[in-house]
């Protein structure tokens, strides 16, 4: 297992290198000069050129790339042009929100998605199944910003149950109770994703239910609920576990819209803002971090596979 992990990490290197080149190219091809944005409306072209040179943007692209790569290898993602702070620090402050948001969303997905999915599958073909599975599909069809907008109107402005927006850090005044800021955003984000999990759990369970070993389990005289959970759901979990991993990875980055609607200081919004500001080091840094995260989760999913499915041997 250790050897496997090491080997996998080694094979990540070329992929990561390719990813860095792509990230760098994409980001630097975007039109717009960060110096101009920094200096604002009244700056003259000379002033912009001067600052641009100070920031090192006048050098050839490949030199900029290797300088950047060299720093990245030393764990230094550069300095944000806009914040004049290390990119790692900028990302770090966004990461708290994003990870908490993704985690809370995962909690909703697990406490809503799994049971409804199991219910839908065990009641396959009944009206319960029809309502839950169509309902899930409907939930997955709603644009998140539209949903978020109405959730704010109802639960914050009208009812005053939850804060409308923003997220003070857990280390801020209020501590753990600041999580209440994330309730509406995480629900918004959970709606389509929980729906996908409902559909996935249902589909996987129906697939597993057709397998021969389930018939064997029933032939033992087991209670249908025990068959459903211990034999069908347990095996369906193999497919669902992967989805969980990738959903979590996706939540970090795909939360852009939700973070914008709820004005959360997360990584997604950081990227959008950084794109608008042409804060290249931050865009590069965030995308790189997410790519690494994705790959790590990919690895974790494979390790989880091995735990869940003894047929998978890690070699």
């Amino acid at each position: 297992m250790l050897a496997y992990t090491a080997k996998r990490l080694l094979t990540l290197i070329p992929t990561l290198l390719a990813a860095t080149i792509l990230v760098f190219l994409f980001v630097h091809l975007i039109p717009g000069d960060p110096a101009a944005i920094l200096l604002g409306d009244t700056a003259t072209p000379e002033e912009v050129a001067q600052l641009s040179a100070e920031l090192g943007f006048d050098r050839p692209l490949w030199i900029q790339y290797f300088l950047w790569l060299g720093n990245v290898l030393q764990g230094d993602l550069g300095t944000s042009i806009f914040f004049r702070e290390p990119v790692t620090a900028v990302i770090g402050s966004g990461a708290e929100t994003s990870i908490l948001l993704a985690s809370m969303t995962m909690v909703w997905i697990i406490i809503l998605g799994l049971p409804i999915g199991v219910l839908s599958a065990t009641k396959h073909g009944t009206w319960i199944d029809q309502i839950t599975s169509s309902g899930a599909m409907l939930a997955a069809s709603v644009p998140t910003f539209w949903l978020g907008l109405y959730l704010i109107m109802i639960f914050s402005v009208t009812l005053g149950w939850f804060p409308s927006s923003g997220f003070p850090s857990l280390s801020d005044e209020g501590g753990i109770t600041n999580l209440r800021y994330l309730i509406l955003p995480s629900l918004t984000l959970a709606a389509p994703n929980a729906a996908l999990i409902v559909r996935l759990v249902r589909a996987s369970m129906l697939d597993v239910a057709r397998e021969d070993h389930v018939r064997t389990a029933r032939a033992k005289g087991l209670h249908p609920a025990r068959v459903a959970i211990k034999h069908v759901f347990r095996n369906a979990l193999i497919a669902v576990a992967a989805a969980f991993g990738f959903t979590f990875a996706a939540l970090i980055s795909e939360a852009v819209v939700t973070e914008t609607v709820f004005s959360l200081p997360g990584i997604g919004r950081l990227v959008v803002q950084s794109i608008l500001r042409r804060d290249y080091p931050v865009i590069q840094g965030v995308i790189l971090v997410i790519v690494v995260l994705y790959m790590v989760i990919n690895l974790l999913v494979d390790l989880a596979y091995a735990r869940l499915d003894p047929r998978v041997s890690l070699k």
Partner: protein
Amino acid sequence: MALLEVENLHIAVGSGGKLLPVVQGVSFCVDENETLGIVGESGCGKSLTSLAIMGLLGDSTVRITGGSIRFDGMDLLTLSAPERRAIMGNRMAMIFQEPMTSLNPVYRIGDQIAESIRQHQQISRSAARDRAVELLTLVRIPNPSERVDSFPHQMSGGQRQRVMIAMALSCDPKLLIADEPTTALDVTVQKEVLELMADLQDRMGTAIVLISHDLGVIAETCDKVAVMYRGKIAEAAATADLFAELAHPYTRGLLNSIPVVDRDVEWLEAIPGRVPTLEETLTGCAFHPRCALATDFCASRAPETSQFKPNHSVQCHFAGGSTT
């Protein structure tokens, strides 16, 4: 009274809003320590019959539409679901065709056997495990105390089928239903598994219903045979009686179709045509389109079950004997 009595069993499959009869009036009985072989080609209804006895026709599209199944004095079809489950895996057990897929791949085989035991007996975890090792020894798995912790994918097909047998025998069932237990296995392994089953039956006195498409397997293992064709029992008798004198043209055709290893046959006497599909409705004898003896009469009237010889029944207008 026999251990298992199936009487006039009818099973139908729902398809496109219609109910298509698959099993039409099948009756047979099995005594303790007796092996009944049910033989037939694919689609004849033999597997559905076995699933119906076991109570595994879970799929809502398949339904028992008539008849009765009595097991050990109980009418199985009138039992409640929990009562039925108390019998399943306990006094009546089943093994299946596909040893490769019939075991849950994510659990150790010992746990799967123990699960079956603990479902029906108040017994501790460790005692169930000991019993599992015992059972694995019984089915001649080498190194049973180690293999008990193996996962199914770590075993060969033959070994898995032995595990299935161990699992089926875990609660000393009175009846064992084996649905094509050796079809997926190589002949050499098939022989070992069949011998194992026969051996266990000798020791435990279990009744066995063995379902197979292979006449050879049936002939070697069973005390009596029922030959099914398209949902009906074409011919049934004690094995020796049946092969002594084949009464039904289908049974004869089937036998003549099999290329044998013991002698050279220039041309096989194949049955012409094919088994009609479920959608095709047939009047009269189901076999008449393929039967060399068939007349107009065969096409218009279905034959009743008649006694060809004592304990040798047949459904054919041309077989001798008295109609019952």
